[in-house]
């Protein structure tokens, strides 16, 4: 084809007109109006070019700047060299010791997050007290001392060591006394270190005192039997237990141990064997033990000794000089009956008294000797070492110091500036002392008076050992590197005394190697490792010998009578100072878990108070929580809100110690009032009772109680029976004889696959007869499930967050000795509030199979699992609270505030350091979300996974929920109902089992077992 064809753009090109030729010279036929755009008209257009460029420039700049905002980077760095024992997400457990009890410490990624009982522990058999459960939180307490201090200023250890050593050397040369003042030390290695220190400084001595003293018992045993020891009691071997003011299930000597012993004769197993112990309590204030007693008689503190004299008279058939009747006629009657009971159960009975008075305890020894308790229920040959404080030594030290005889004092786990009855004496004494060192890891009241603070490790950072009972040795091992610049007190002592062994670990190893391992049949490195794994050794106990009492009791009776008349004559009211199971002696006042734990008896949190009889309150015309001023003979007075306490003896006031700390830390400062100054020294021991005057003020100081209605209104929420009834009919009181036909709207759907529980059906059984109401489960649950602490104000608004609570109800005397008055209107008309019975009921999510909460949630945030659990999907919850309203058990808790990140809750758990205690397996909940007991679903899941990996079925009892695990009474049993042989199935099959509000047909997953009381029917009129 010819390609030379030419196409013209137009006639102009063909004709090559001059205009075309001219135009064709340029690239563009027509000029581009660049000039015009760049100047003049372009700038005055509607959208000028420059504005456009400005906008563009700004836009790009702004976007760039915005993009420069650093996105927070959360680095998660894997281990470069992974420690062999740490697998992220898997917990490690280390055996250790808490106050003589073998424990297991759960650590996650190197930080301890929970303390659990060691099932082999001699004392609590795997249970743990509320205090022990809460102890892990103290490790992360921000008010711990971060560095050693000299004269109040932070310093380094070398400087401190130099100062202390120089001083000690100078003091040694001067020849004046050096005193190590401590609360009871039962660690053999610590005692050895102290002994070595004393060898190095011959003028040194070790003074032991306990804020709450047991010198009375020790001294009485010395007088009676020549053995200055605290006996080891066996409540499980006693069929009849009589306690005169000893709160042995709570605060007396070894509460957890005694609880597990006590329950052995009262739990389901014992009942099925038709056996139940009888427990009679004589006391003035209502104690935790008193709430559990079968018969409880309120008596005044001044009549404590007289009641014991009357009991002795009734038992021995003699009459001690000066014996007289009690003001409570019922109590008098009871004493005679009790004497009969005791004699009938000779050798299987136990009488204990809470008094710290030597003569009272001597009388108790005489009674126990009459009853043949020594060698059976009381063991003097394998004694307890839990309390060894000596009031005489202690007061002598204070007197010596005041006289200027002491030049150095080292305080180990001692805070006398708070807990000594006469703080002025301590201040005066310390002024005269040249070197004052405290090992406290807090800036406590005593630290403020010392010139050196050598902060001790927290026990979870320490090496050590313990021996709470003769022959029982436990080991303490660290579970984390020291958080602060602290040093173990023992190591400080070694350094200061220039001991050949410089580190306490080496010292401890050597001590065990030479003295202790052999007692457990262990030896060498392998033995040590075995010990660390097991946590304890238990040497075979010496056979408990029988002892008989041979002293003359006339002098004892005289002392008792004279003391009684002192208390009774002094004023209108008799004051009894006691400990609450939550706060104890106040050393742990800075622990928010304990402050928020409701007192088992009064349900008061965050305060102490003056407990008085409702009759006395009526008589004085007091309003609820009206402040009264209590003034004792020694001039000390406190103003406390009054609390109406049913069961309190008329004319008595009870005030708890452990409060009123001024230098405990952010949490514990100025919570309540200090009651230690009410102590008085009598016959060489500290007495907790005194005569006081009670003056009414016009102030009202509201207490924050978690329960404000105290009777169960005759509702069958609580079901009770007497032991006599139970023996006739095991189902007595359980409502089983009222069975009626059941109707079920969902019968069909329950059978279909989507609603069945193919493998597991998680349920729980709670034995009301075993539960003592101590509240350890509440703290265990808080630790396990990251439950926020909300503080006094919020508790006062009735917004505590606990997933498990213990309901406590009083029933009153109907005038005939039957304790069955429970209705509000009838109680209002009562005059006698002394004779009451108490029941504790742990209440938590019942995981109902027909859960009323599930049907009302608009967004399906709470649903049922195929394993029978009622579950919360926090992320789905919008917070209508309809579920909580519709829950008949009122166990759902709403996050009213963002507790984990709200500056108003800074005192409690919202700071970053303290949050290290959180359980990473449980999410913290945001505000506006409902929460409740999950039956520790994370533990169930972990257990199931472990079984799956090991290709075996999950064994019964392998998964324990937190509340169950810590319960020394084993009142809570959890497990799979689909397994007919599981513990829980057996428990639920018990005749005593009933379900709370079962008539609503919500099908709760928690069965309760009827409370059985072994009452003395002869007492009923």
């Amino acid at each position: 084809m010819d390609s030379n064809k030419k196409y013209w753009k137009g006639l102009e090109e063909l004709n090559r007109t001059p205009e075309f030729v001219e135009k064709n010279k340029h690239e563009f036929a027509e000029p581009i109006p660049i000039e015009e755009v760049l100047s003049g008209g372009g700038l005055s257009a509607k959208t000028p070019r420059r504005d456009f460029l400005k906008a563009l420039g700004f836009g790009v700049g702004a976007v760039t700047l915005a993009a420069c905002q650093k996105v927070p980077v959360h680095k998660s760095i894997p281990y470069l060299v992974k420690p062999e024992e740490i697998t992220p997400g898997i917990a490690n457990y280390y055996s250790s010791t808490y106050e003589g009890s073998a424990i297991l410490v759960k650590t996650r990624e190197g930080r301890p997050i929970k303390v659990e009982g060691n099932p082999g522990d001699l004392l609590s058999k795997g249970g743990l007290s509320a205090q022990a459960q809460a102890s892990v939180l103290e490790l992360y307490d921000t008010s711990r001392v971060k560095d050693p201090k000299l004269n109040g200023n932070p310093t380094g250890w070398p400087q401190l060591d130099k100062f202390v050593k120089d001083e000690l050397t100078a003091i040694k040369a001067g020849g004046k006394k050096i005193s190590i003042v401590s609360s009871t030390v039962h660690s053999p290695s610590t005692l050895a270190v102290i002994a070595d220190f004393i060898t190095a400084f011959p003028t040194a001595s070790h003074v032991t005192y306990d804020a709450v003293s047991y010198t009375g018992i020790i001294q009485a045993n010395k007088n009676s039997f020549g053995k200055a020891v605290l006996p080891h009691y066996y409540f499980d071997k006693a069929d009849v237990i009589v306690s005169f003011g000893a709160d042995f299930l709570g605060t007396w000597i070894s509460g957890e141990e005694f609880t597990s012993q006590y329950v052995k004769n009262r739990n389901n197993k014992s009942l099925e064997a038709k056996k139940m112990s009888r427990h009679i309590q004589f006391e003035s204030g209502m104690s935790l033990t008193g709430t559990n007693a079968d018969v409880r008689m309120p008596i005044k503190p001044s009549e404590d000794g007289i009641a014991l004299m009357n009991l002795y008279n009734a038992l021995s058939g003699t009459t001690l000089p000066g014996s007289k009747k009690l003001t409570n006629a019922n109590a008098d009657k009871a004493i005679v009956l009790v004497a009969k009971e005791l004699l009938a159960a000779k050798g299987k009975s136990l009488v204990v008294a809470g008094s710290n008075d030597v003569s009272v305890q001597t009388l108790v020894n005489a009674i126990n000797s009459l009853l043949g308790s020594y060698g059976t229920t009381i063991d003097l040959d394998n004694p307890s070492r839990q309390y060894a404080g000596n009031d005489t030594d202690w007061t002598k030290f204070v007197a010596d110091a005041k006289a200027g005889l002491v030049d150095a004092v080292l305080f180990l786990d001692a805070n006398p500036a708070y807990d000594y009855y006469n703080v002025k004496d301590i201040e005066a004494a310390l002024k005269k002392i040249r070197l004052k060192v405290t090992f406290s890891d807090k800036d406590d009241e005593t630290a403020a008076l010392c010139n050196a603070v050598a902060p001790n490790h927290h026990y979870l950072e320490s090496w050590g050992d313990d021996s709470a009972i003769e022959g029982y040795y436990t080991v303490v091992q660290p579970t984390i590197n020291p958080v602060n610049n602290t040093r173990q007190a023992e190591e400080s002592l070694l350094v200061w005394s220039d001991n050949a062994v410089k580190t306490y670990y080496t010292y401890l190893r050597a001590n065990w190697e030479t003295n202790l391992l052999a007692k457990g049949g262990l030896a060498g490195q392998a033995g040590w490792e075995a010990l660390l794994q097991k946590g304890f050794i238990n040497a075979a106990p010496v056979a408990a010998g029988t002892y008989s009492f041979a002293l003359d009791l006339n002098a004892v009776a005289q002392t008792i009578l004279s003391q009684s008349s002192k208390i009774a004559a002094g004023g209108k009211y008799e004051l009894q100072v006691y400990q609450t199971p939550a706060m104890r002696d106040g050393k742990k006042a800075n622990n928010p878990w304990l402050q928020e734990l409701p007192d088992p008896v009064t349900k008061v949190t965050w305060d102490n108070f003056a407990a008085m009889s409702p009759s006395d309150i009526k008589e004085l015309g007091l309003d609820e929580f009206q402040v009264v001023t209590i003034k004792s003979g020694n001039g000390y007075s406190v103003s406390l809100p009054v609390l109406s306490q049913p069961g309190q003896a008329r004319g008595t006031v009870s005030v708890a110690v452990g409060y009123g700390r001024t230098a405990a830390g952010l949490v514990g400062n100025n919570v309540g009032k200090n009651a230690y100054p009410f102590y008085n020294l009598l016959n060489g021991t500290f007495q907790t009772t005194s005569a006081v005057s009670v003056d009414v003020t016009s102030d009202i100081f509201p207490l924050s109680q978690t329960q404000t209605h105290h009777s169960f209104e005759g509702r069958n929420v609580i079901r009770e029976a007497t032991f006599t009834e139970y023996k006739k009919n095991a189902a007595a009181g359980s409502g089983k004889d009222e069975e009626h036909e059941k109707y079920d709207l969902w019968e069909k759907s329950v059978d279909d696959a989507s609603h069945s529980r193919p493998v597991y059906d998680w349920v729980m059984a709670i034995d009301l007869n075993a539960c003592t109401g101590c509240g350890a489960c509440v703290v265990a649950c808080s630790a396990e499930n990251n439950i926020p602490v909300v503080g006094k104000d919020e508790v006062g608004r009735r917004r505590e967050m606990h997933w498990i609570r213990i309901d406590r109800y009083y029933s009153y005397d109907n005038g005939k000795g039957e304790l069955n008055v429970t209705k509000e209107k009838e109680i209002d008309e009562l005059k006698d509030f002394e004779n009451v019975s108490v029941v504790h009921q742990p209440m938590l999510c019942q995981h109902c199979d027909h859960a009323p909460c599930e049907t009302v949630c608009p967004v399906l945030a709470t649903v049922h699992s195929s394993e029978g659990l009622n579950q919360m999907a926090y992320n789905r919850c919008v917070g209508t609270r309809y579920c909580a309203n519709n829950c008949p058990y009122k166990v759902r808790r709403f996050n009213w505030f963002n507790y984990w990140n709200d500056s108003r809750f800074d005192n409690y758990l919202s700071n970053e350091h303290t949050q290290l205690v959180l359980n990473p397996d449980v999410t913290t909940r945001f505000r506006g979300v409902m929460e409740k007991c999950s039956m520790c679903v994370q533990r169930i899941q972990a257990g199931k996974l472990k079984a799956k990996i090991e290709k075996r079925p999950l064994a019964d009892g392998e998964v324990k929920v937190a509340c169950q695990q810590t319960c020394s009474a084993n009142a809570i049993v959890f497990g799979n109902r689909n397994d007919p042989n599981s513990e829980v199935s057996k428990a639920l099959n018990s005749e005593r089992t009933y379900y709370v509000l079962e008539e609503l047909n919500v099908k709760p997953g928690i069965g309760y077992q009827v409370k059985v009381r072994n009452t003395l029917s002869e007492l009923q009129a």
Partner: protein
Amino acid sequence: MASHNESIIREPLITGKGITYAQITNDVLNPVENKPNKAWWIGFTVASLGSLLWVVSISYTFWFGLGAWGLNKTVGWAWDITGFVWWVGIGHAGTLISAVLLIFRQNWRNSINRSAEAMTIFAVICAATYIVAHMGRPWLAYFTLPLPNQYVLWVNWNSALMMDVFAISTYFSVSLLFWYTGLLPDIASIRDRATGLRRRIYSILSFGWTGSVKTWQRFETVSLILAGISTPLVLSVHTIVSFDFATSLEPGWHTTIFPPYFVAGAIFSGFAMVQTLLLVTRKVLGLENYITMFHIESMNKIIMLTGSIVGVAYITEFFIAWYSGVEYEQYAFINRATGPYWWAYWSMMSCNVISPQLFWSSKLRRSIKFSWFLSIIVNIGMWFERFVIIVTSLHRDYIPSSWVMFYPTWVDVSVFIGSIGIFFTMFLLFIRVLPSVAIAEVKLLLKTSSEQSKKKEIEEGHLDPVEVQYYKESLVKYDSVDMSDYEKI
């Protein structure tokens, strides 16, 4: 609205001599077309301050969390749901007046339906704010809607709260539609008289209303259809609100009597609120000729009737509690009357049951001051009714250990007072920009007035005497009119 065959001598629904169609338009549009008077400004200032209080208290709640309210572990609902039910209840009168009375051809409703419907809408808005505000996490309120999502999460159709979401939103949409449809011819009237920007706005709002016969015919049909849809809502909405309580397990809530009892209570409180508003409005806006003593008396009669129904319901609840033999149910009711909240119960009883009985006296029924006073009493009483149901049931239910008292905080009180502020702000703005009386519908009632002018023409001799004679005879013969009465008009 359709045909009206009322006797000419029946008491006229519009009073006053010589009222013409133009007069009506002028009267009703007076507040819309002129600057507001002092009374309006005072009211608006107070209401706006109330709204501001609401903004402050709700912001405080959203910032800190629901802990700002006085609720606790046992009482999970108190002033919030009390306020919610109170507002929803108030809304009911509007729908009853506009829909049910329309279907029953109660023409007297024509003068009050507009304001009552506006009140419904504003009350439902106030109720809706409570639904969102009472949530722990209000920013997730959309979770309550069945929106498809990648998590395959769905809502719970068993929950009465879920039904509530639908009941309230349906109710709001239908009420709004009904109200706005009725407004169309009136907006067109404003448009026709307005100029400038106002004319443009009202022109858009009137949806191009032409006023042709076909438009009117369609208007009437739509109104009837919407009335038909709304009528069941009058019953269903508060029935479903009552399900929030009735379907629960709570003693004092779990009651089958709740649906009718709640509906009667809602109408009761709604009419009281209409009285509260209109007695003031007719005075301030000079609408006495349109909202007459007849209206006031009729509404008072309804208040008396529904108040009595509510009273019977209260007594029935007690009877059933006793008759059921259920311990918890019995305690719940004894506790209401004699427990710590006895004062709330007796406030409710005296306000709701005893005081409306005073309307048996026609003197009191016809006293404007007394009617207004009593309408306030009823509003207070109905608030207490919801408070009694919610708080006194919750605060002491099954497990005595959880029994508590509820104390409101300043935030609780402020949110409630603030919601009243919001309501009045909206209502006051409404009477400024839209006709507070349905002009078109009121004009239908003017029959009496036209009779007056006819008579005037007869008297002045403008009409053929034969026809006049025939007309008068027909009046006697077909309309049963006594000539002596005819002379009086």
